[in-house]
């Protein structure tokens, strides 16, 4: 008391200041609620119109009233599954390695710290950078397998006749009696069906023609007739053209007759199975579900690791010690004690990571989603569309009808995310109660 009686006047208005501060804080908090409501409100207002069962059933169309998102919806589901199948095992394994096997030596401890910091950094890498990595590593595979667009291919028939001759050509017409082919360095050929001993369809990534006039043409067919072959030229020539100032990236066209061909070479995919069936594999992946899904997997890998580590850390040490004291090995302790009690946390994290993958668009822009896809994916190496990209595409169009379509697509996307989150909540509830 005595200390302060002389030193100054009491401050006034502290209560008022306190209340003003609280008011500002509440206003800030309310602002985010208002924004959320406005956002949802504007989207439902715009998107309600096109929302119907047909919208889910139809493929994209240039006519807004006929457009739908079937390919995008299924593409997104495929992608989420691939991303999860890629990221969850790796993420959980990494989390276990970091959390359950504490380093003892100095070098190991440094590695441990380094990996932890590294994971933090990976979580901060913009998704667009993952996209460019996915494009280079998964879709193009550094170009070591050649070609710039591996999902585009020419289908050629390799026919073996009864006499043992092999005819390689592009099928023009096929009837019960005869198969008409264009053999690129010979011209039109008709082969009666009853003379064919064996037929194999081969997918050609790149044709290379050396013509009699010295031209060197590499690319894919645009149009093939017995008299004339029209080629979309790709590869190095196109690069050179772009540098020289031509319109960038546009494929040039070369026309020649089969009779002009001096040399003919083909490059095939490294491939197994039929591109139209379920069991199909190729290298490079090309702009495919697998490439896109793995790219998304990279994006969510740090999220899965961080969530799994949290879940593992929540398991009390006494449980581990109890199991180890009974003579369990490290891994037995993890398998039988630690993982079962942390699995709800891990699964919740994994599902939330998957919903992040579903909403992520930027990496797919690069790792190869197509916007105008009129089918759902057949296999992992098939091309695909994705919900957020379909929305992006529609939102970017000037007509307001497409904006409404985008809003409808957003409602569907939010619906899918809602389902994921509900599943996560249910898992948390169900497992939480059991303990």
């Amino acid at each position: 008391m005595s200390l302060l009686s002389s030193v100054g006047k009491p401050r006034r208005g502290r209560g008022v200041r306190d209340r003003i501060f609280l008011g500002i804080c509440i206003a800030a908090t309310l602002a985010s609620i208002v924004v959320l409501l406005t956002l949802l409100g504007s989207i439902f207002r715009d998107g309600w119109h096109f929302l119907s069962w047909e919208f889910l059933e139809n493929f994209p169309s240039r006519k807004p009233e006929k457009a739908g998102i079937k390919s995008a919806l299924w593409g997104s589901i495929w992608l989420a599954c691939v991303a999860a199948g890629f990221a969850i095992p790796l993420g959980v394994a990494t989390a276990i390695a970091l959390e359950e096997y504490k380093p003892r030596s100095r070098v190991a401890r440094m590695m441990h710290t380094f990996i932890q910091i590294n994971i933090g950094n990976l979580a901060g890498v913009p998704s667009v950078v993952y996209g460019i990595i996915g494009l280079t590593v998964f879709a193009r595979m550094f170009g070591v397998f050649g070609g710039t667009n591996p999902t585009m291919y020419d289908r050629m028939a390799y026919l073996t006749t009864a006499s043992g001759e092999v005819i390689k050509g592009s099928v023009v017409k096929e009837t019960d009696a005869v198969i008409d082919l264009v053999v690129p360095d010979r011209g039109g050929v008709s082969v009666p069906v009853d003379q064919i001993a064996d037929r194999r369809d081969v997918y050609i990534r790149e044709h290379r023609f050396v013509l009699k006039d010295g031209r060197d043409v590499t690319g894919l067919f645009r149009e093939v007739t017995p008299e004339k072959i029209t080629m979309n030229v790709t590869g190095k020539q196109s690069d050179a053209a772009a540098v020289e100032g031509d319109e960038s990236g546009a494929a040039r066209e070369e026309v020649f007759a089969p009779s002009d061909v001096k040399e003919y070479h083909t490059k095939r995919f490294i491939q197994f199975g039929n591109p139209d069936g379920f069991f199909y594999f190729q290298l490079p992946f090309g702009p495919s579900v697998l490439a896109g899904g793995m790219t998304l997997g990279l994006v969510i890998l740090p999220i899965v690791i961080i969530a799994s580590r949290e879940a593992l850390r929540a398991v009390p040490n006494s449980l581990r010690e109890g199991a180890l004291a009974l003579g369990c090995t490290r891994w037995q302790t993890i398998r039988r004690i630690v993982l079962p009690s942390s699995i709800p946390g891990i699964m919740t994290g994994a599902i939330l990571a998957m919903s992040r993958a579903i909403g992520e668009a930027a990496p797919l822009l690069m790792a190869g989603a197509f916007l105008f896809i009129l089918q759902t994916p057949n296999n992992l190496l098939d091309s695909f569309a994705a919900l957020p990209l379909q929305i992006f595409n529609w939102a970017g169009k000037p007509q307001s009808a497409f904006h409404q379509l985008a809003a409808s697509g957003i409602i569907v996307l939010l619906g899918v995310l809602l389902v994921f989150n509900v599943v996560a909540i249910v898992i948390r509830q169900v497992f939480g109660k059991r303990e």
Partner: protein
Amino acid sequence: MASMSADMPTTSTPQPPVAARGGNPLGAIAERAASQRGEQVETMRAIEIADFNCWYGDFQALHGVTLDVPKGRVMALIGPSGCGKSTLLRWINRMNDLVRGARCEGTMNLHGVNLIDRNMDVVGLRRQVGMVFQKPNPFPKSIYDNIAFGPRLHFKVGRSDLDRVVEQSLRGAALWDEVKDRLHKSALGLSGGQQQRLCIARAIAVGPEVLLMDEPASALDPKSTLRIEELIRELRKNYTIVIVTHNMQQAARVSDNTAFFYEGRLVETGATAEMFMNPKNKQTEDYVLGRFG
């Protein structure tokens, strides 16, 4: 156990030797301490507590406590863990307002003002009733800023006045000589005992009348504890002190009056020497003799 009505501190009357009553050696400590201090005849009450009940949610933590804290004395609250002594302490400056589901009824007056009134100016109250916690809790600021924190909140003070307040507070907490050369260094660099004295200095810097101490020495080593106890005896000249302690010897050494709590009830209260040598209640006797607790 019915709560006891408050015993006023009495002047020390000649007591039979401890050994004669087969009593508690702590009684001797208390007696010696009291005689060293020189007993004052003062009966003014700083805090009056009457029929005080409080709850945490559905759990009743205090049952009908009636207790007076005389002004300018040290009152020790003792009892086993969970007996409600810290709860009572935390009501005196309304720190329990921060605990969800805590409520109380009854009377608790500070100089005749009911401090559990809903309309009480809690901030003003806390300026008058300082508190020191079990673990030292210096703010992550410099030593100077820690002490100046309270005065800056409450008063418009100039630089030189503030310097003076800081110095006086630190002197009051017997810390000045140790820290005067590093006032602007972080308070987190001080030792545990120094941190606790810093917290005491911080509390007295806003000029309180009452100091509440919640086991102020329990986290400290014996040497620092001793310094804190010396400080409490020093502070007694200027402040009314209520101290919660588990350490029976500490209660005997520093306090004038003692109140024993058990399971949320006040069992017995009286002059410390009396309580230790001549407890009226069997439970009190058992506790101060260390038979339980």
